[in-house]
Protein backbone atom coordinates (compact mmCIF):
# COMPACT_ATOMS: atom_id res chain seq x y z
CA UNK A 1 0.00 0.00 0.00
CA UNK A 2 1.42 3.33 -1.01
CA UNK A 3 0.30 6.73 0.23
CA UNK A 4 0.54 8.14 3.71
CA UNK A 5 1.21 5.59 6.38
CA UNK A 6 1.91 7.61 9.48
CA UNK A 7 -0.47 9.77 11.43
CA UNK A 8 -1.83 12.94 9.89
CA UNK A 9 -3.21 11.46 6.69
CA UNK A 10 -6.11 13.81 7.30
CA UNK A 11 -5.68 17.12 9.11
CA UNK A 12 -8.73 19.19 9.97
CA UNK A 13 -8.17 22.44 11.80
CA UNK A 14 -11.02 24.71 12.88
CA UNK A 15 -13.50 23.47 10.29
CA UNK A 16 -16.66 25.56 10.05
CA UNK A 17 -19.68 24.86 7.87
CA UNK A 18 -22.43 27.46 7.69
CA UNK A 19 -25.75 27.58 5.89
CA UNK A 20 -27.96 30.57 5.11
CA UNK A 21 -30.92 30.85 7.46
CA UNK A 22 -34.31 32.46 7.05
CA UNK A 23 -33.24 35.72 8.67
CA UNK A 24 -30.76 36.25 5.85
CA UNK A 25 -27.73 35.45 8.00
CA UNK A 26 -25.67 32.28 8.26
CA UNK A 27 -26.16 29.52 10.80
CA UNK A 28 -23.10 27.46 11.62
CA UNK A 29 -23.76 23.72 11.65
CA UNK A 30 -20.11 22.89 12.32
CA UNK A 31 -18.35 25.37 14.58
CA UNK A 32 -14.63 24.84 14.71
CA UNK A 33 -13.93 21.11 14.54
CA UNK A 34 -10.28 20.04 14.64
CA UNK A 35 -8.77 16.57 14.51
CA UNK A 36 -5.98 14.56 12.94
CA UNK A 37 -6.32 11.09 11.56
CA UNK A 38 -3.88 8.42 10.51
CA UNK A 39 -4.63 4.88 9.40
CA UNK A 40 -6.89 4.37 12.36
CA UNK A 41 -10.55 4.32 13.21
CA UNK A 42 -12.05 7.49 14.41
CA UNK A 43 -15.61 7.53 15.65
CA UNK A 44 -17.67 10.70 15.59
CA UNK A 45 -20.69 10.49 17.88
CA UNK A 46 -23.42 12.99 18.40
CA UNK A 47 -27.14 13.51 18.25
CA UNK A 48 -29.09 14.65 15.17
CA UNK A 49 -28.01 18.11 14.14
CA UNK A 50 -24.72 17.99 16.03
CA UNK A 51 -22.82 18.53 12.78
CA UNK A 52 -21.26 15.09 12.52
CA UNK A 53 -22.56 14.35 9.02
CA UNK A 54 -21.73 17.83 7.79
CA UNK A 55 -18.17 17.33 9.01
CA UNK A 56 -17.89 14.17 6.92
CA UNK A 57 -19.40 15.81 3.87
CA UNK A 58 -17.18 18.87 4.12
CA UNK A 59 -14.08 16.64 4.00
CA UNK A 60 -15.30 15.18 0.72
CA UNK A 61 -16.40 18.55 -0.60
CA UNK A 62 -20.01 17.45 -0.74
CA UNK A 63 -21.48 20.32 1.24
CA UNK A 64 -24.65 21.63 -0.45
CA UNK A 65 -23.82 24.53 -2.80
CA UNK A 66 -25.48 27.16 -0.60
CA UNK A 67 -23.30 26.12 2.37
CA UNK A 68 -20.01 27.83 3.18
CA UNK A 69 -17.00 25.81 4.32
CA UNK A 70 -14.04 27.48 6.02
CA UNK A 71 -11.08 26.15 8.00
CA UNK A 72 -7.59 27.12 9.02
CA UNK A 73 -6.38 23.96 7.42
CA UNK A 74 -7.99 20.95 5.83
CA UNK A 75 -5.51 18.63 4.19
CA UNK A 76 -5.50 15.07 2.98
CA UNK A 77 -2.06 13.58 2.40
CA UNK A 78 -0.64 17.05 2.00
CA UNK A 79 -3.32 18.09 -0.51
CA UNK A 80 -5.15 21.26 0.45
CA UNK A 81 -8.82 20.27 0.31
CA UNK A 82 -10.06 23.84 0.62
CA UNK A 83 -8.27 25.25 -2.39
CA UNK A 84 -7.95 22.30 -4.73
CA UNK A 85 -9.63 22.42 -8.12
CA UNK A 86 -12.87 20.60 -8.92
CA UNK A 87 -10.90 18.09 -10.96
CA UNK A 88 -8.45 17.38 -8.12
CA UNK A 89 -11.29 16.90 -5.68
CA UNK A 90 -13.06 14.56 -8.06
CA UNK A 91 -9.93 12.44 -8.34
CA UNK A 92 -9.79 12.21 -4.56
CA UNK A 93 -13.44 11.32 -4.15
CA UNK A 94 -14.00 7.64 -4.59
CA UNK A 95 -10.37 7.24 -5.58
CA UNK A 96 -8.67 8.05 -2.28
CA UNK A 97 -11.47 9.12 0.06
CA UNK A 98 -14.78 7.31 -0.17
CA UNK A 99 -18.02 7.58 1.69
CA UNK A 100 -20.68 5.06 2.63
CA UNK A 101 -24.09 6.63 3.13
CA UNK A 102 -26.82 5.65 5.51
CA UNK A 103 -29.62 3.94 3.61
CA UNK A 104 -28.97 1.84 0.50
CA UNK A 105 -32.64 2.23 -0.41
CA UNK A 106 -31.92 5.86 -1.30
CA UNK A 107 -28.20 5.96 -1.93
CA UNK A 108 -28.19 3.46 -4.78
CA UNK A 109 -29.52 4.62 -8.14
CA UNK A 110 -32.79 2.70 -8.63
CA UNK A 111 -32.59 2.46 -12.43
CA UNK A 112 -29.01 1.24 -12.71
CA UNK A 113 -27.88 -2.31 -12.02
CA UNK A 114 -25.67 -2.87 -8.99
CA UNK A 115 -22.80 -4.10 -11.15
CA UNK A 116 -22.90 -1.02 -13.36
CA UNK A 117 -22.81 1.23 -10.32
CA UNK A 118 -19.77 -0.54 -8.93
CA UNK A 119 -17.91 -0.61 -12.25
CA UNK A 120 -18.63 3.08 -12.69
CA UNK A 121 -16.49 4.03 -9.69
CA UNK A 122 -13.55 2.10 -11.06
CA UNK A 123 -14.03 3.62 -14.52
CA UNK A 124 -13.86 7.08 -13.01
CA UNK A 125 -10.46 6.43 -11.42
CA UNK A 126 -8.61 3.84 -13.44
CA UNK A 127 -8.09 2.89 -17.05
CA UNK A 128 -9.48 -0.60 -17.20
CA UNK A 129 -11.08 -2.74 -19.86
CA UNK A 130 -14.71 -3.76 -19.48
CA UNK A 131 -13.70 -7.31 -18.77
CA UNK A 132 -11.19 -6.27 -16.13
CA UNK A 133 -13.65 -3.86 -14.52
CA UNK A 134 -16.25 -6.59 -14.29
CA UNK A 135 -13.79 -9.04 -12.79
CA UNK A 136 -12.70 -6.55 -10.18
CA UNK A 137 -16.30 -5.66 -9.34
CA UNK A 138 -17.09 -9.36 -8.85
CA UNK A 139 -13.97 -9.71 -6.69
CA UNK A 140 -14.98 -6.74 -4.55
CA UNK A 141 -18.49 -8.14 -4.18
CA UNK A 142 -16.89 -11.36 -2.96
CA UNK A 143 -14.86 -9.35 -0.46
CA UNK A 144 -18.03 -7.91 1.05
CA UNK A 145 -19.13 -11.52 1.45
CA UNK A 146 -21.68 -11.75 -1.29
CA UNK A 147 -21.70 -15.43 -2.19
CA UNK A 148 -23.02 -15.31 -5.73
CA UNK A 149 -21.59 -12.08 -7.12
CA UNK A 150 -22.48 -12.92 -10.74
CA UNK A 151 -26.15 -12.90 -9.86
CA UNK A 152 -26.02 -9.79 -7.69
CA UNK A 153 -24.01 -7.96 -10.36
CA UNK A 154 -27.05 -7.91 -12.66
CA UNK A 155 -29.66 -7.17 -10.03
CA UNK A 156 -31.23 -3.78 -9.46
CA UNK A 157 -31.15 -2.16 -6.01
CA UNK A 158 -34.83 -2.86 -5.31
CA UNK A 159 -34.23 -6.57 -5.84
CA UNK A 160 -31.85 -6.96 -2.88
CA UNK A 161 -32.28 -6.66 0.88
CA UNK A 162 -31.05 -3.70 2.89
CA UNK A 163 -28.00 -5.56 4.17
CA UNK A 164 -27.10 -6.76 0.68
CA UNK A 165 -27.63 -3.25 -0.68
CA UNK A 166 -25.32 -1.77 1.92
CA UNK A 167 -22.67 -4.39 1.12
CA UNK A 168 -22.98 -3.43 -2.55
CA UNK A 169 -22.60 0.20 -1.49
CA UNK A 170 -19.38 -0.65 0.37
CA UNK A 171 -18.11 -2.55 -2.67
CA UNK A 172 -18.92 0.45 -4.84
CA UNK A 173 -16.92 2.72 -2.55
CA UNK A 174 -13.96 0.40 -2.02
CA UNK A 175 -13.36 -0.86 -5.54
CA UNK A 176 -10.95 1.97 -6.39
CA UNK A 177 -8.85 1.26 -3.27
CA UNK A 178 -9.27 4.45 -1.25
CA UNK A 179 -7.02 5.28 1.72
CA UNK A 180 -9.79 6.72 3.82
CA UNK A 181 -13.41 5.70 4.23
CA UNK A 182 -16.02 7.95 5.75
CA UNK A 183 -18.95 5.87 6.90
CA UNK A 184 -21.95 8.05 7.68
CA UNK A 185 -24.30 5.97 9.86
CA UNK A 186 -23.70 2.93 7.65
CA UNK A 187 -25.78 0.57 9.76
CA UNK A 188 -28.59 2.77 11.07
CA UNK A 189 -31.07 1.67 8.41
CA UNK A 190 -30.46 -2.05 8.98
CA UNK A 191 -31.78 -4.71 11.33
CA UNK A 192 -29.69 -5.32 14.42
CA UNK A 193 -28.44 -8.75 13.34
CA UNK A 194 -27.52 -7.45 9.90
CA UNK A 195 -25.80 -4.48 11.54
CA UNK A 196 -23.33 -6.76 13.29
CA UNK A 197 -22.62 -8.73 10.11
CA UNK A 198 -21.98 -5.55 8.21
CA UNK A 199 -19.71 -4.15 10.90
CA UNK A 200 -17.67 -7.36 10.83
CA UNK A 201 -17.25 -7.01 7.07
CA UNK A 202 -16.29 -3.36 7.37
CA UNK A 203 -13.91 -4.17 10.20
CA UNK A 204 -12.08 -6.79 8.20
CA UNK A 205 -11.82 -4.68 5.06
CA UNK A 206 -10.47 -1.67 6.93
CA UNK A 207 -7.91 -3.85 8.72
CA UNK A 208 -6.86 -5.83 5.65
CA UNK A 209 -6.47 -2.80 3.47
CA UNK A 210 -4.96 -0.66 6.18
CA UNK A 211 -7.38 2.15 5.56
CA UNK A 212 -8.28 5.06 7.77
CA UNK A 213 -11.90 5.16 8.85
CA UNK A 214 -14.16 7.92 10.05
CA UNK A 215 -17.19 6.25 11.53
CA UNK A 216 -20.08 8.62 12.08
CA UNK A 217 -22.86 7.39 14.31
CA UNK A 218 -25.26 8.32 17.05
CA UNK A 219 -24.69 4.97 18.70
CA UNK A 220 -22.07 5.47 21.41
CA UNK A 221 -21.76 1.83 22.31
CA UNK A 222 -21.31 0.74 18.69
CA UNK A 223 -18.63 3.35 18.13
CA UNK A 224 -16.79 2.50 21.34
CA UNK A 225 -16.48 -1.17 20.40
CA UNK A 226 -15.54 -0.44 16.81
CA UNK A 227 -13.20 2.55 16.88
CA UNK A 228 -9.82 3.45 18.33
CA UNK A 229 -10.76 7.00 19.19
CA UNK A 230 -14.03 8.84 19.66
CA UNK A 231 -14.96 12.46 19.11
CA UNK A 232 -18.14 13.49 20.88
CA UNK A 233 -19.90 16.31 19.08
CA UNK A 234 -22.55 18.58 20.45
CA UNK A 235 -24.10 21.59 18.70
CA UNK A 236 -21.43 21.75 16.03
CA UNK A 237 -18.44 21.42 18.34
CA UNK A 238 -16.24 18.63 19.60
CA UNK A 239 -16.96 18.58 23.31
CA UNK A 240 -14.72 15.67 24.15
CA UNK A 241 -12.17 13.32 22.67
CA UNK A 242 -11.84 9.86 24.17
CA UNK A 243 -9.96 6.69 23.55
CA UNK A 244 -12.39 3.84 22.92
CA UNK A 245 -11.57 2.09 26.18
CA UNK A 246 -11.89 5.27 28.20
CA UNK A 247 -15.62 5.68 28.00
CA UNK A 248 -15.96 5.55 31.75
CA UNK A 249 -13.39 8.33 32.18
CA UNK A 250 -15.43 10.84 30.20
CA UNK A 251 -15.18 14.31 31.69
CA UNK A 252 -17.75 16.32 29.82
CA UNK A 253 -21.23 16.20 31.39
CA UNK A 254 -22.86 15.61 27.99
CA UNK A 255 -20.74 12.51 27.32
CA UNK A 256 -21.29 11.34 30.85
CA UNK A 257 -25.00 11.74 30.32
CA UNK A 258 -24.78 9.65 27.15
CA UNK A 259 -22.78 6.93 28.87
CA UNK A 260 -25.19 6.98 31.77
CA UNK A 261 -28.14 6.41 29.46
CA UNK A 262 -26.71 3.19 28.02
CA UNK A 263 -28.93 0.36 29.24
CA UNK A 264 -27.26 -2.58 30.97
CA UNK A 265 -28.55 -6.11 30.99
CA UNK A 266 -30.32 -7.20 34.16
CA UNK A 267 -30.56 -3.76 35.60
CA UNK A 268 -33.72 -2.00 36.78
CA UNK A 269 -33.57 1.75 36.90
CA UNK A 270 -36.53 3.92 37.71
CA UNK A 271 -36.87 6.53 36.54
CA UNK A 272 -34.77 5.99 33.42
CA UNK A 273 -32.00 8.57 33.14
CA UNK A 274 -32.54 11.26 30.50
CA UNK A 275 -30.09 13.45 28.65
CA UNK A 276 -29.30 16.84 30.03
CA UNK A 277 -28.70 19.56 27.42
CA UNK A 278 -27.45 22.78 28.89
CA UNK A 279 -27.35 25.84 26.68
CA UNK A 280 -23.90 26.82 27.98
CA UNK A 281 -22.36 23.68 26.36
CA UNK A 282 -23.38 25.05 22.99
CA UNK A 283 -21.47 28.29 23.54
Amino acid at each position, binding site marked *: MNGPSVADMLVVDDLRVAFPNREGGMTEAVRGVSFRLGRERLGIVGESGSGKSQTGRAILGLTAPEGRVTANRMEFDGIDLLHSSARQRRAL*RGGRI*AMVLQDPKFSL*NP*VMSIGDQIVETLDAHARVSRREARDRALETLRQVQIDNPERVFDLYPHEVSGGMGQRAMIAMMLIADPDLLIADEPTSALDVTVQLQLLAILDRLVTDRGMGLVFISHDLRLVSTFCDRILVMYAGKVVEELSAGGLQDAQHPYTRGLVNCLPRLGEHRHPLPTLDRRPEWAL
Partner: protein
Amino acid sequence: MTIAEQTRGGGRRSARLLRGADTVGRFLLVIFLTYLGLLAVTFFIGRVIPIDPVLAVVGDRAPEHVIQRVREEMGLNKPLWEQFFIYCRKVLQGDFGTSVLTSNPVMQDIRRAFPATIELATLGTIMGAGLGVPLGVWAAVRRGGVADQLVRVMGLIGYSVPIFWLGLMGLLVFYARLGWVGGPGRIDVAYEYSLTPVTGFMLLDTAIAGEWEAFGNAFSHLILPASLLGYFSLAYISRMTRSFMLNELNQEYVIAARAKGLTETRIIWRHALRNAMVPLVTVIALSYAGLLEGSVLTETVFAWPGLGLYITNSLQNADMNAVLGGTIVVGSIFIGLNLLSDILYRLLDPRTKTR
Protein backbone atom coordinates in the same frame (compact mmCIF):
# COMPACT_ATOMS: atom_id res chain seq x y z
CA MET B 1 -25.27 -24.39 -9.13
CA THR B 2 -27.01 -27.17 -7.25
CA ILE B 3 -30.08 -28.93 -8.55
CA ALA B 4 -32.25 -27.24 -5.97
CA GLU B 5 -31.02 -23.87 -7.13
CA GLN B 6 -31.63 -24.79 -10.75
CA THR B 7 -35.21 -25.73 -10.16
CA ARG B 8 -35.70 -22.60 -8.16
CA GLY B 9 -34.29 -20.64 -11.09
CA GLY B 10 -36.68 -22.42 -13.44
CA GLY B 11 -39.63 -21.67 -11.19
CA ARG B 12 -38.56 -18.07 -11.11
CA ARG B 13 -38.46 -17.90 -14.89
CA SER B 14 -41.89 -19.41 -15.38
CA ALA B 15 -43.27 -17.16 -12.67
CA ARG B 16 -41.84 -14.22 -14.57
CA LEU B 17 -43.46 -15.46 -17.80
CA LEU B 18 -46.79 -15.86 -16.05
CA ARG B 19 -46.52 -12.36 -14.66
CA GLY B 20 -45.70 -11.12 -18.16
CA ALA B 21 -48.78 -12.80 -19.61
CA ASP B 22 -50.82 -11.40 -16.77
CA THR B 23 -49.55 -7.89 -17.51
CA VAL B 24 -50.35 -8.19 -21.22
CA GLY B 25 -53.81 -9.50 -20.36
CA ARG B 26 -54.46 -6.58 -18.06
CA PHE B 27 -53.22 -4.17 -20.72
CA LEU B 28 -55.60 -5.63 -23.29
CA LEU B 29 -58.52 -5.48 -20.88
CA VAL B 30 -57.81 -1.83 -20.12
CA ILE B 31 -57.60 -0.98 -23.83
CA PHE B 32 -60.83 -2.86 -24.54
CA LEU B 33 -62.73 -1.08 -21.75
CA THR B 34 -61.35 2.33 -22.65
CA TYR B 35 -62.27 1.80 -26.28
CA LEU B 36 -65.76 0.62 -25.37
CA GLY B 37 -66.15 3.77 -23.27
CA LEU B 38 -64.98 5.93 -26.15
CA LEU B 39 -67.47 4.31 -28.52
CA ALA B 40 -70.28 4.62 -25.99
CA VAL B 41 -69.59 8.31 -25.49
CA THR B 42 -69.42 9.11 -29.21
CA PHE B 43 -72.56 7.02 -29.84
CA PHE B 44 -74.36 8.81 -27.03
CA ILE B 45 -73.33 12.23 -28.33
CA GLY B 46 -74.53 11.25 -31.79
CA ARG B 47 -78.00 10.48 -30.38
CA VAL B 48 -78.53 13.40 -28.05
CA ILE B 49 -77.39 16.31 -30.21
CA PRO B 50 -80.27 18.30 -31.62
CA ILE B 51 -79.39 17.43 -35.21
CA ASP B 52 -81.69 14.94 -36.87
CA PRO B 53 -79.46 12.75 -39.05
CA VAL B 54 -82.40 11.97 -41.31
CA LEU B 55 -83.21 15.61 -41.94
CA ALA B 56 -79.53 16.29 -42.53
CA VAL B 57 -79.68 13.85 -45.43
CA VAL B 58 -83.09 14.43 -47.01
CA GLY B 59 -83.53 18.11 -46.19
CA ASP B 60 -86.42 19.60 -44.25
CA ARG B 61 -88.88 19.72 -47.14
CA ALA B 62 -88.99 16.00 -47.87
CA PRO B 63 -92.38 14.27 -47.62
CA GLU B 64 -93.21 12.19 -44.56
CA HIS B 65 -92.90 8.75 -46.28
CA VAL B 66 -89.37 9.60 -47.52
CA ILE B 67 -88.29 10.56 -44.01
CA GLN B 68 -89.77 7.33 -42.71
CA ARG B 69 -87.96 5.25 -45.33
CA VAL B 70 -84.58 6.88 -44.76
CA ARG B 71 -85.02 6.49 -41.02
CA GLU B 72 -85.48 2.76 -41.52
CA GLU B 73 -82.55 2.60 -43.96
CA MET B 74 -80.34 4.21 -41.37
CA GLY B 75 -81.52 1.72 -38.77
CA LEU B 76 -82.81 4.43 -36.47
CA ASN B 77 -86.04 2.54 -35.81
CA LYS B 78 -84.21 -0.34 -34.21
CA PRO B 79 -83.78 -0.63 -30.44
CA LEU B 80 -80.93 1.43 -29.01
CA TRP B 81 -78.70 -1.49 -27.99
CA GLU B 82 -78.90 -2.91 -31.49
CA GLN B 83 -78.02 0.47 -32.93
CA PHE B 84 -75.01 0.63 -30.64
CA PHE B 85 -73.95 -2.83 -31.70
CA ILE B 86 -74.20 -1.91 -35.38
CA TYR B 87 -72.33 1.33 -34.68
CA CYS B 88 -69.49 -0.50 -32.95
CA ARG B 89 -69.23 -3.02 -35.76
CA LYS B 90 -69.06 -0.30 -38.39
CA VAL B 91 -66.48 1.70 -36.50
CA LEU B 92 -64.29 -1.35 -36.04
CA GLN B 93 -64.51 -1.91 -39.80
CA GLY B 94 -63.29 1.67 -40.28
CA ASP B 95 -66.70 2.84 -41.51
CA PHE B 96 -67.60 6.18 -39.98
CA GLY B 97 -70.33 6.92 -42.52
CA THR B 98 -70.31 9.60 -45.16
CA SER B 99 -69.48 13.23 -44.62
CA VAL B 100 -72.35 15.51 -45.55
CA LEU B 101 -69.95 18.36 -46.23
CA THR B 102 -67.53 16.63 -48.62
CA SER B 103 -69.79 13.68 -49.57
CA ASN B 104 -66.77 11.42 -49.19
CA PRO B 105 -66.60 8.56 -46.72
CA VAL B 106 -65.34 10.10 -43.45
CA MET B 107 -62.53 7.58 -43.31
CA GLN B 108 -61.23 8.75 -46.67
CA ASP B 109 -61.27 12.39 -45.53
CA ILE B 110 -59.45 11.55 -42.33
CA ARG B 111 -56.91 9.52 -44.20
CA ARG B 112 -56.13 12.61 -46.24
CA ALA B 113 -56.12 15.09 -43.34
CA PHE B 114 -54.35 13.02 -40.73
CA PRO B 115 -50.91 12.68 -42.40
CA ALA B 116 -50.72 16.47 -42.61
CA THR B 117 -51.26 16.70 -38.87
CA ILE B 118 -48.91 13.81 -38.10
CA GLU B 119 -46.14 15.49 -40.06
CA LEU B 120 -46.63 18.73 -38.19
CA ALA B 121 -47.02 17.15 -34.75
CA THR B 122 -44.10 14.78 -35.11
CA LEU B 123 -41.63 17.43 -36.20
CA GLY B 124 -43.02 19.76 -33.52
CA THR B 125 -42.59 17.14 -30.80
CA ILE B 126 -39.09 16.23 -31.94
CA MET B 127 -38.14 19.89 -31.67
CA GLY B 128 -40.02 20.42 -28.41
CA ALA B 129 -38.54 17.39 -26.67
CA GLY B 130 -35.14 17.67 -28.32
CA LEU B 131 -34.70 21.20 -27.04
CA GLY B 132 -37.07 21.24 -24.09
CA VAL B 133 -35.41 18.38 -22.19
CA PRO B 134 -31.85 19.80 -22.35
CA LEU B 135 -33.14 23.27 -21.53
CA GLY B 136 -35.06 21.93 -18.54
CA VAL B 137 -31.98 20.04 -17.34
CA TRP B 138 -29.88 23.17 -17.77
CA ALA B 139 -32.39 25.25 -15.81
CA ALA B 140 -32.49 22.70 -13.00
CA VAL B 141 -28.71 22.48 -12.73
CA ARG B 142 -28.34 26.27 -12.72
CA ARG B 143 -31.29 26.68 -10.43
CA GLY B 144 -31.89 30.34 -9.58
CA GLY B 145 -29.20 31.45 -12.01
CA VAL B 146 -29.38 33.37 -15.27
CA ALA B 147 -29.95 30.20 -17.30
CA ASP B 148 -32.89 29.26 -15.10
CA GLN B 149 -34.49 32.69 -15.51
CA LEU B 150 -33.90 32.61 -19.26
CA VAL B 151 -35.63 29.25 -19.62
CA ARG B 152 -38.42 30.43 -17.34
CA VAL B 153 -39.08 33.53 -19.48
CA MET B 154 -38.93 31.45 -22.68
CA GLY B 155 -41.46 29.05 -21.25
CA LEU B 156 -43.69 31.85 -20.03
CA ILE B 157 -43.78 33.42 -23.49
CA GLY B 158 -44.53 30.04 -25.02
CA TYR B 159 -47.45 29.60 -22.64
CA SER B 160 -48.94 33.06 -22.77
CA VAL B 161 -48.52 34.44 -26.29
CA PRO B 162 -51.42 33.26 -28.47
CA ILE B 163 -50.14 30.84 -31.05
CA PHE B 164 -52.13 32.38 -33.92
CA TRP B 165 -50.44 35.73 -33.27
CA LEU B 166 -47.02 34.10 -33.22
CA GLY B 167 -48.00 32.30 -36.43
CA LEU B 168 -49.02 35.48 -38.19
CA MET B 169 -45.89 37.30 -37.03
CA GLY B 170 -43.78 34.36 -38.13
CA LEU B 171 -45.36 34.42 -41.57
CA LEU B 172 -44.91 38.19 -41.79
CA VAL B 173 -41.24 38.11 -40.87
CA PHE B 174 -39.88 34.83 -42.22
CA TYR B 175 -42.15 34.42 -45.26
CA ALA B 176 -43.24 37.87 -46.39
CA ARG B 177 -40.20 39.93 -45.42
CA LEU B 178 -37.23 37.59 -45.40
CA GLY B 179 -38.54 34.88 -47.69
CA TRP B 180 -36.72 32.20 -45.71
CA VAL B 181 -39.67 29.80 -45.49
CA GLY B 182 -42.58 28.68 -47.60
CA GLY B 183 -45.93 30.35 -46.97
CA PRO B 184 -49.27 28.80 -46.03
CA GLY B 185 -50.24 25.37 -47.29
CA ARG B 186 -48.20 22.20 -47.39
CA ILE B 187 -46.39 22.80 -50.67
CA ASP B 188 -46.29 25.38 -53.49
CA VAL B 189 -49.16 25.09 -55.96
CA ALA B 190 -46.66 24.47 -58.76
CA TYR B 191 -45.73 21.11 -57.22
CA GLU B 192 -49.08 20.21 -55.79
CA TYR B 193 -50.67 18.56 -58.84
CA SER B 194 -47.61 16.90 -60.26
CA LEU B 195 -47.29 14.81 -57.14
CA THR B 196 -48.96 11.43 -56.73
CA PRO B 197 -49.90 10.85 -53.11
CA VAL B 198 -48.59 7.50 -51.89
CA THR B 199 -48.43 7.83 -48.13
CA GLY B 200 -50.06 11.24 -47.75
CA PHE B 201 -46.93 12.51 -46.03
CA MET B 202 -45.51 15.29 -48.18
CA LEU B 203 -41.92 14.69 -47.14
CA LEU B 204 -42.16 10.95 -47.79
CA ASP B 205 -44.07 11.29 -51.05
CA THR B 206 -41.61 13.76 -52.53
CA ALA B 207 -38.69 11.65 -51.36
CA ILE B 208 -40.20 8.49 -52.87
CA ALA B 209 -40.75 10.29 -56.15
CA GLY B 210 -37.17 11.52 -55.97
CA GLU B 211 -38.37 15.09 -56.42
CA TRP B 212 -35.83 16.73 -54.16
CA GLU B 213 -36.80 20.23 -55.19
CA ALA B 214 -40.36 19.51 -54.15
CA PHE B 215 -39.07 17.91 -50.97
CA GLY B 216 -37.21 21.09 -50.09
CA ASN B 217 -40.26 23.12 -50.87
CA ALA B 218 -42.50 20.96 -48.67
CA PHE B 219 -39.96 21.20 -45.89
CA SER B 220 -39.84 24.98 -46.15
CA HIS B 221 -43.62 25.01 -45.75
CA LEU B 222 -43.51 22.66 -42.80
CA ILE B 223 -40.71 24.21 -40.80
CA LEU B 224 -42.44 27.37 -39.56
CA PRO B 225 -45.69 25.86 -38.23
CA ALA B 226 -43.74 22.90 -36.83
CA SER B 227 -41.36 25.27 -35.03
CA LEU B 228 -44.31 27.09 -33.50
CA LEU B 229 -45.83 23.87 -32.21
CA GLY B 230 -42.36 22.80 -31.12
CA TYR B 231 -41.92 26.02 -29.17
CA PHE B 232 -45.29 25.49 -27.57
CA SER B 233 -44.44 21.97 -26.40
CA LEU B 234 -40.92 23.06 -25.48
CA ALA B 235 -42.42 25.51 -23.00
CA TYR B 236 -44.29 22.69 -21.31
CA ILE B 237 -41.65 19.98 -21.57
CA SER B 238 -38.84 22.19 -20.26
CA ARG B 239 -40.88 23.16 -17.19
CA MET B 240 -41.70 19.56 -16.41
CA THR B 241 -38.10 18.44 -17.02
CA ARG B 242 -36.85 21.15 -14.67
CA SER B 243 -39.12 20.08 -11.84
CA PHE B 244 -38.45 16.34 -12.30
CA MET B 245 -34.71 17.04 -12.40
CA LEU B 246 -34.76 19.20 -9.28
CA ASN B 247 -36.46 16.34 -7.50
CA GLU B 248 -33.85 13.83 -8.69
CA LEU B 249 -30.86 16.07 -7.95
CA ASN B 250 -31.95 16.19 -4.31
CA GLN B 251 -31.83 12.41 -3.96
CA GLU B 252 -29.21 10.59 -1.92
CA TYR B 253 -27.95 8.58 -4.87
CA VAL B 254 -26.71 11.84 -6.42
CA ILE B 255 -24.57 12.47 -3.33
CA ALA B 256 -23.34 8.89 -3.55
CA ALA B 257 -22.48 9.41 -7.23
CA ARG B 258 -20.51 12.55 -6.31
CA ALA B 259 -18.76 10.65 -3.52
CA LYS B 260 -17.67 8.12 -6.14
CA GLY B 261 -15.86 10.90 -7.97
CA LEU B 262 -18.01 10.91 -11.11
CA THR B 263 -18.06 14.00 -13.30
CA GLU B 264 -21.01 16.39 -12.99
CA THR B 265 -21.90 15.66 -16.62
CA ARG B 266 -22.22 11.97 -15.91
CA ILE B 267 -24.15 12.56 -12.68
CA ILE B 268 -26.63 14.85 -14.42
CA TRP B 269 -27.20 12.94 -17.63
CA ARG B 270 -26.56 9.32 -16.69
CA HIS B 271 -27.94 9.30 -13.18
CA ALA B 272 -30.43 12.09 -12.57
CA LEU B 273 -31.91 12.44 -16.06
CA ARG B 274 -32.14 8.69 -16.48
CA ASN B 275 -34.42 8.68 -13.42
CA ALA B 276 -36.29 11.81 -14.50
CA MET B 277 -36.96 10.22 -17.91
CA VAL B 278 -39.37 7.78 -16.29
CA PRO B 279 -42.14 10.34 -15.65
CA LEU B 280 -40.98 12.52 -18.57
CA VAL B 281 -41.90 9.85 -21.10
CA THR B 282 -45.55 10.21 -20.17
CA VAL B 283 -45.37 14.00 -20.38
CA ILE B 284 -43.82 13.89 -23.85
CA ALA B 285 -46.26 11.24 -25.09
CA LEU B 286 -49.29 13.22 -23.92
CA SER B 287 -47.92 16.43 -25.38
CA TYR B 288 -47.47 14.59 -28.68
CA ALA B 289 -51.03 13.27 -28.45
CA GLY B 290 -52.23 16.82 -27.85
CA LEU B 291 -50.54 17.97 -31.04
CA LEU B 292 -51.86 15.00 -33.02
CA GLU B 293 -55.33 16.00 -32.08
CA GLY B 294 -54.69 18.80 -34.53
CA SER B 295 -54.03 22.35 -33.52
CA VAL B 296 -56.90 24.26 -35.04
CA LEU B 297 -55.37 27.70 -34.66
CA THR B 298 -52.05 26.82 -36.24
CA GLU B 299 -53.72 24.87 -39.01
CA THR B 300 -56.04 27.78 -39.72
CA VAL B 301 -53.27 30.40 -39.83
CA PHE B 302 -51.12 28.24 -42.11
CA ALA B 303 -54.01 26.90 -44.22
CA TRP B 304 -52.81 23.46 -43.24
CA PRO B 305 -55.36 20.82 -44.27
CA GLY B 306 -54.96 18.77 -41.10
CA LEU B 307 -57.23 16.93 -38.68
CA GLY B 308 -57.91 19.92 -36.43
CA LEU B 309 -59.11 22.01 -39.32
CA TYR B 310 -61.21 19.13 -40.66
CA ILE B 311 -62.95 18.48 -37.34
CA THR B 312 -63.58 22.17 -36.72
CA ASN B 313 -65.01 22.70 -40.20
CA SER B 314 -67.24 19.66 -39.81
CA LEU B 315 -68.40 20.84 -36.42
CA GLN B 316 -69.34 24.25 -37.76
CA ASN B 317 -71.34 22.59 -40.51
CA ALA B 318 -73.09 20.12 -38.21
CA ASP B 319 -71.45 17.25 -40.11
CA MET B 320 -71.86 14.75 -37.31
CA ASN B 321 -70.38 11.67 -38.96
CA ALA B 322 -67.17 13.56 -39.61
CA VAL B 323 -67.01 15.00 -36.10
CA LEU B 324 -67.61 11.63 -34.44
CA GLY B 325 -65.18 9.89 -36.77
CA GLY B 326 -62.56 12.50 -35.95
CA THR B 327 -63.28 12.14 -32.25
CA ILE B 328 -62.77 8.40 -32.41
CA VAL B 329 -59.48 8.82 -34.25
CA VAL B 330 -58.28 11.35 -31.67
CA GLY B 331 -59.43 9.07 -28.85
CA SER B 332 -57.59 6.15 -30.40
CA ILE B 333 -54.42 8.25 -30.57
CA PHE B 334 -54.65 9.00 -26.88
CA ILE B 335 -55.25 5.37 -26.01
CA GLY B 336 -52.37 4.29 -28.24
CA LEU B 337 -49.89 6.82 -26.90
CA ASN B 338 -50.90 6.14 -23.32
CA LEU B 339 -50.19 2.49 -23.97
CA LEU B 340 -46.87 3.34 -25.56
CA SER B 341 -45.80 5.49 -22.63
CA ASP B 342 -46.85 2.73 -20.24
CA ILE B 343 -44.62 0.29 -22.09
CA LEU B 344 -41.70 2.73 -22.18
CA TYR B 345 -42.23 3.39 -18.48
CA ARG B 346 -41.81 -0.29 -17.82
CA LEU B 347 -38.69 -0.45 -19.94
CA LEU B 348 -37.13 2.56 -18.23
CA ASP B 349 -37.92 1.67 -14.65
CA PRO B 350 -36.73 -1.78 -13.56
CA ARG B 351 -38.87 -1.51 -10.42
CA THR B 352 -42.09 -1.93 -12.40
CA LYS B 353 -41.05 -5.32 -13.76
CA THR B 354 -41.05 -7.29 -10.55
CA ARG B 355 -44.01 -5.55 -9.02
